[in-house]
């Protein structure tokens, strides 16, 4: 079971755990402080969720509206049914334009479809320009957090990495390291023929795509190269331009506690005059890759409301202990636990819905009120129905026995009494290795009730 194995590795990594505790605590505090300055946070959440529900209930119509408006403004819109098709479309566009240097700003969808590997097979090596993603790319690893992908690395590790890959002198001054990355990447920006970005929101009414960021690398990626390609999941569309307001109010505060990130780029088609700044071409790739399937039931559909803020990661007591890698995909934490099985159906899919104590902290902080525990429970029921996972046989037997006994109170009592008398305890090594097991009470409540509690009056009455 790979989730379990990777979780154990993470738990043994003291430095990782310290970094995760620090990051999640800090983001949680900043989020709470940001909310405190806002008069009707709950109202905003409700409104945002209502907008998402409305959109998803008519997703076909809004996608068509978005496409028509984006194309009218000069964009070329492509539709990709799955990861392979998306990689193919993007690869062909890159090759046709003779792209040698390709820069990329943050796009989780691009990692979902393993775009970099697909482009590499065509001899194209895109450079990640988001600092955290850049670090992770240089290290040959995968991101461990949605907002701070390299949170699992210390500055000493990054210093060693930069010294090795960029040839700079070892320094663990953070500003120096960031400056080194800036230097290295500026060259790439200057040379890039193609910029690939993600999309935070796509407005149907105007054909606009909106990209949020703090560093400026997305602005460079989308304004310098001659060709800009934006990859987006089909669920990113929202109906009206004015709807952007509530999402801009919710997302940065939820993710990092900022009222606004440093930059928002609202891009509508291509430049109106050839002499204007900006790319000559804008390609928008709409990605399905399993999203349309999730529309089939209300409980799974809400997964598509996610705006990728990362708040659930920061609130999750499980993620806090194990970080992102154990989730085995670009989507970690609570949202990852429900999105990955539904989108990617990877090997870990049968494990992920169970990797939660169902505490609900994620639901509390989700800006669009996704009831993640409800989706987890749905996926668990589905897993049982499909007989997924190897451990099912014994478990099915156990639950059959449990249901049988619980329907028969006398049988239950008899079994408990027998276990007590014979001192039989279930061999729960998974419990007793770390925790003492409370023994069965010498007299159960119902035995005490029958033996006199029933007829007692309150001595103080």
């Amino acid at each position, binding site marked *: 079971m790979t989730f379990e194995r990777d979780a154990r590795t993470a*738990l043994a990594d003291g430095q990782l755990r310290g970094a995760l505790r620090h990051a999640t605590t800090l983001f949680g505090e900043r989020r709470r402080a940001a909310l405190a300055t806002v008069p009707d946070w709950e109202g905003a959440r409700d409104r945002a969720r209502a907008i998402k529900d409305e959109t998803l209930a008519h997703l076909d119509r809004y996608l068509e509206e978005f496409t028509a408006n984006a194309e009218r403004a000069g964009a070329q819109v492509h539709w990709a049914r799955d990861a392979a098709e998306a990689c193919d479309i993007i690869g062909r566009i890159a090759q046709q334009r003779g792209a040698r240097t390709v820069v990329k700003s943050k796009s989780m969808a691009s990692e979902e479809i393993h775009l970099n590997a697909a482009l590499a097979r065509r001899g194209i090596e895109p450079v990640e320009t988001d600092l955290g993603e850049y670090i992770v790319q240089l290290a040959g690893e995968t991101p461990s957090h949605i907002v701070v992908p390299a949170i699992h690395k210390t500055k000493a590790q990054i210093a060693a990495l930069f010294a090795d890959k960029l040839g700079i002198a070892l320094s663990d001054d953070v500003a120096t390291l960031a400056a080194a990355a800036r230097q290295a990447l500026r060259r790439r920006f200057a040379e890039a023929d193609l910029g690939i970005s993600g999309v935070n929101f796509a407005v149907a009414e105007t054909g606009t795509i909106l990209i949020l960021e703090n560093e400026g690398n997305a602005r460079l990626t989308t304004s310098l190269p001659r060709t800009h390609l934006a990859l987006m999941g089909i669920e990113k569309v929202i109906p009206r331009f004015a709807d952007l307001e509530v999402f801009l109010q919710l997302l940065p505060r939820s993710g990092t506690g900022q009222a606004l990130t440093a930059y928002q780029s609202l891009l509508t088609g291509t430049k109106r005059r050839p002499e204007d700044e900006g790319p000559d071409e804008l390609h928008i790739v709409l990605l399905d890759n399993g999203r349309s399937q999730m529309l089939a039931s209300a409980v799974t559909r809400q997964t598509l409301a996610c705006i990728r803020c990362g708040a659930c990661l920061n609130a999750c007591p499980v993620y806090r202990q194990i970080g992102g890698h154990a989730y085995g995909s670009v989507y970690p934490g609570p949202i990852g636990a429900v999105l990955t099985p539904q989108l990617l159906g990877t090997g870990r899919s049968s494990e992920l819905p*169970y990797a939660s104590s169902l505490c*609900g902290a994620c639901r509390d902080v989700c800006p669009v009120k996704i009831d993640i525990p409800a989706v987890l429970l749905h996926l668990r029921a589905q897993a049982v*129905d499909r007989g997924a996972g190897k451990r099912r046989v014994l478990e099915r037997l156990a639950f059959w026995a449990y249901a049988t006994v*619980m329907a028969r109170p006398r049988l*239950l009592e008899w079994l408990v009494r027998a276990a007590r008398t014979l001192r039989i305890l279930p061999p729960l090594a998974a419990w007793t290795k770390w925790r003492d097991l*409370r023994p069965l009470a010498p007299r159960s409540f119902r035995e005490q009730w029958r033996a006199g509690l029933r007829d007692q009056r309150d001595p103080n009455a």
Partner: protein
Amino acid sequence: MRVSLFVTCLADQLWPSAAVGTVQVLRRLGCVVEFDERQTCCGQPAFNTGYRPAARTLAQRLIEIFESSTADAIVSPSGSCTAMVHHYHQLFDDGGWRARARGVAERTHELSSFLVNRLGVEDVGASFSGRLTWHDACHGLRDLGIRTEPRRLLRRVKGAELVELPNAETCCGFGGTFSVKYPEISVAMLDEKVDAIERAGVEAVVSGDASCLMQIGGRLSRRGSPVRAVHLAEVLASTL
């Protein structure tokens, strides 16, 4: 006021003092308490693990049992089991059963919520000397919105000094079968909770769910800590 006790299988067999305490507190406040011996388990373990048909069968059983009671309220010493009953309607496609589920749920209350919100009482005449801290069990907190009620009750206990945990609202790591499916993660979460409890310098950690108390108490004793895990009902019933 007539109350029918929803004892919960866990309290019944593993933490009966919580159930006994519940009965004693209710009687002290003038309630007549009934106990229908047909009840067993609310089905939460099955529901949480994905065995919905089994959960549905047990839900139907519990609904029928409590429908037959004419008590004014059904009271339970468990936030998670109470929350399960409140979720029963999700188990049924049939409109009839959904309505019946909702009917029982409306009458079912967790103990602290019943005392403070239904009976309007905060001082239940309890005495329990020592420094205590409260652990918010997740379902009671987030599904039922129980946050201030236990604290208000504990603050009125004579001799008790209530200390707030910095991570009171953080999950203890039990999560039902999660605690044995992913024990290392469960214990990692648990240790953060137990570390905070030990730093708080208290004699007991109190909670409204026996499941959390088993998890926390089991680790406290394994770590050799003198801190006891005590159920809210035990504190409230105490008149020492």
